[in-house]
């Protein structure tokens, strides 16, 4: 680990570096430049002296030391170079910069500093563990690899996801499909080649991975700078659409990619069926074979019904949820929610909630099929 002298110079290096940064950040004009250059120069000198002291083990070998090559600190094999002091310095500097600039810089710097300190600490410990550098290195790996590899893996995964997502958000929808297929095929092919050529050098495989990753990340960054494609919002299932007053284009797009099969069939208050002869009836879960034409629904409770269309015509189920007088005394618009249009044999959930009793509304609460007059199931809200 560090000798006494190198610790001193290391501290001096850190202090002068931080001083240079703080001076540069806080002092403008010629004085700022001169001070920064001066302090930076001092930091460089101290850094150089740190390195020299480190390599020569302070040159602290007395003339009468027996067997100095083996017993003195200077005679010990030099430990491996460590980047963690430097990283810790960067982290510390980042904290200072972050406090006067952006919070995100501060937070990242804290993480960097903590990580560097942990690495530094463990490295320092492991290098003193024994006189066998190989054993010491093994200890370091045993302690830190369980941390380093998952974190490194997470960084790589994040970079891949980031790059890929930026590319897909930047490309048009049609191009996105092609890129997805192409990249998927490429990854598959690369994986196949690596698996098939068992004799392939580790470095070659690593190189392919690195080149692919860097390429993806680069394209991702470029795509991010280029910006996302324009995404047109889809029309919503508004009350107007539910009541059959939406535009044909809106309704067509809404119903275009309907999922008509519902897996979760529990928690359903009633199954509402539009029969093949155009009757709208409700069946309460648990009471089979009894047709209901009115459902009692509690106030302020989410109610879920499952709509099934048995006719040959695409239909949606609409829940009319009342028309209320506004605070200013004017009459509001009728409220409604609905399913998308369902094809024959299709099913869809409809969830609704009514906060007011029936008497508060000037229009009835009911389940109905837009365009099919008289096919209703009354909703009773006490």
């Amino acid at each position, binding site marked *: 680990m560090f000798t006494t002298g190198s610790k001193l110079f290391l501290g001096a290096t850190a202090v002068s570096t931080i001083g240079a940064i703080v001076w540069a950040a806080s002092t403008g004009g010629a004085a700022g430049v001169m001070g920064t250059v001066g302090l930076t120069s001092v930091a460089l000198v101290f850094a150089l002296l740190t390195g020299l002291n480190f390599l020569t083990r302070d040159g602290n070998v007395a003339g009468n030391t027996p067997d100095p090559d083996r017993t003195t600190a200077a005679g010990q094999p030099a430990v491996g170079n460590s980047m963690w002091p430097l990283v810790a310095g960067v982290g510390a500097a980042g904290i200072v910069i972050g406090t006067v600039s952006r919070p995100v810089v501060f937070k990242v710097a804290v993480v960097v500093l903590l990580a560097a300190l942990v690495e530094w600490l463990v490295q320092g410990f492991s290098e003193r563990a024994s006189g066998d550098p190989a054993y010491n290195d093994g200890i370091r790996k045993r302690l830190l690899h369980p941390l380093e590899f998952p974190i490194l893996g997470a960084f790589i995964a994040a970079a891949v996801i980031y790059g890929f997502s930026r590319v897909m958000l930047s490309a048009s929808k049609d191009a996105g499909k092609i890129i997805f297929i192409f990249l998927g095929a490429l990854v598959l092919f690369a994986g196949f080649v690596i698996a098939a050529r068992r004799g392939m050098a580790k470095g070659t495989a690593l190189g392919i991975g690195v080149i692919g990753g860097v390429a993806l990340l680069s394209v991702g960054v470029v795509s991010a700078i280029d910006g996302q494609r324009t995404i047109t919002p889809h029309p919503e299932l508004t009350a107007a659409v539910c009541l059959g007053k939406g535009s044909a284009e809106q309704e067509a797009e809404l119903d275009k990619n309907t999922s008509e099969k519902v897996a979760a069939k529990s*928690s*359903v208050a009633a199954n509402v069926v539009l029969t093949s002869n155009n009757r709208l009836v409700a069946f309460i879960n*648990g009471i089979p074979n009894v047709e209901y034409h009115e459902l*009692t629904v509690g106030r*302020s409770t989410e109610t879920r019904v499952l709509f099934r269309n048995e006719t040959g015509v695409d239909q949606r189920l609409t829940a009319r949820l009342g028309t209320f007088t506004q605070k200013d005394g004017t009459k509001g618009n009728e409220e409604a929610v609905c399913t998308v249009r369902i094809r024959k044999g299709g099913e869809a959930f409809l969830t609704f909630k009514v906060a007011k*009793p029936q008497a508060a509304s000037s229009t009835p609460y009911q389940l109905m099929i837009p365009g099919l007059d008289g096919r209703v199931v009354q909703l*009773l809200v*006490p």
Partner: protein
Amino acid sequence: MDRSEATVSTLGDMPKSRRRWPLAAVALGLVLAGCAKNAPQDTFDPAGPNARDINNLAMPVFIIAGVVGVIVLGVVVYCVWRFRDRGQDIPEQSHGNPKLEIALTILPAIILAGISVPTVVTVFKLDKKSDTQCVINVTGQQWWWEYDYTTGNCGKAKISAPIVTSGELVIPANTPVLLRITSRDVIHSYWIPRLNGKRDAVPGRLHTLRMQADQPGLYTGQCTEFCGLSHARMRMAAVALNDADFQSWVDNQLEAYTPPKAGTLAATGEATFTAQCSKCHQVNGLKNADGSPVLSSPDLYVVSGVAPNLTNLMTRTAIAGWTFDILSEQCRLKLWNAKPADFGKLYLQGVWMDTPAGATKPVCFDEATLRSWLRNAPAKKPMYSDPTKLASTGGKYRGMPNLHLTDNQIDELIAYLLERK
């Protein structure tokens, strides 16, 4: 101070010979606690076929488990005593006895397999819903239960319009009823121990429970899923009535609103109710001066979006999440201990039980309870109703706040509410 002079203040300081007596007393107390004579929520005293099915399964399983437990504990105690450390040499260490171990594996497996058969049969039996003759929506919220009766047939009774009530689930006796249970805020659990097992009330989900009582009577229950500050005071009851009495109850619930006579205290109370209480509480049929219906808007004031409907408050025996009796204790005991044949008649009279014809005040009414509730509800039942601490709920309450009513207003409201029968 010398330890021998110290006062013996803890169990640990007692001599071993004396230490066992307090422990024995605690154990005896726990055992005797199971022998309460009046235990209205005794799951081992079923009063309906569903609870009986559960009991018929639980009792043999309990006996088998008890026998196994006694044997295991006995062997453990014997081994601990017989082979305790007396300074002897450590006995020969062996792998064990394979035959014994195989036997001790197979025997529990056989017992469990034997138990699983009636268990599965009972589970499917309890889940049966196809024979239910009435549908009631049961909704939990902090800290009371609401019941919405759906229109149609309910046993032999006919319900022509939805009924909404709270606290007491009134059902026809000897009739399988389907409860559809959900919640408006947090998870609760519905449990009337003498009629069936528990069923969780989960927001956004609908769970069903079959309920049936053998004969008329009152069966109490308790929310069994911790649901916040007043969980312990979220109680409920199922009231079973014979068919004729149940039809009477239905008819009474659907009776048109009768306004108080002009100039009476109750009439003033109606105005007070409209101004103060109707923001959250609904009384069906109540009208404004211009003839328009008075409609509550609890969705603006309460997290759950509802408050108990008070249309027929005086047909219930308790208020505030069925926590506080509005029947006097004497009348309550009379009702609770009534024979099944007499129960319905007494129950339908509510607080007017035993009141002579022509009397203006009901004999059985516990006015002090309702008065103190109206004076300061949160003081009687803890609720999140401090108006300065509602930031997290957007200014909405969980429970009823203190309305700071004057004594005169309370008098007026009581007079008005007494007519909600």
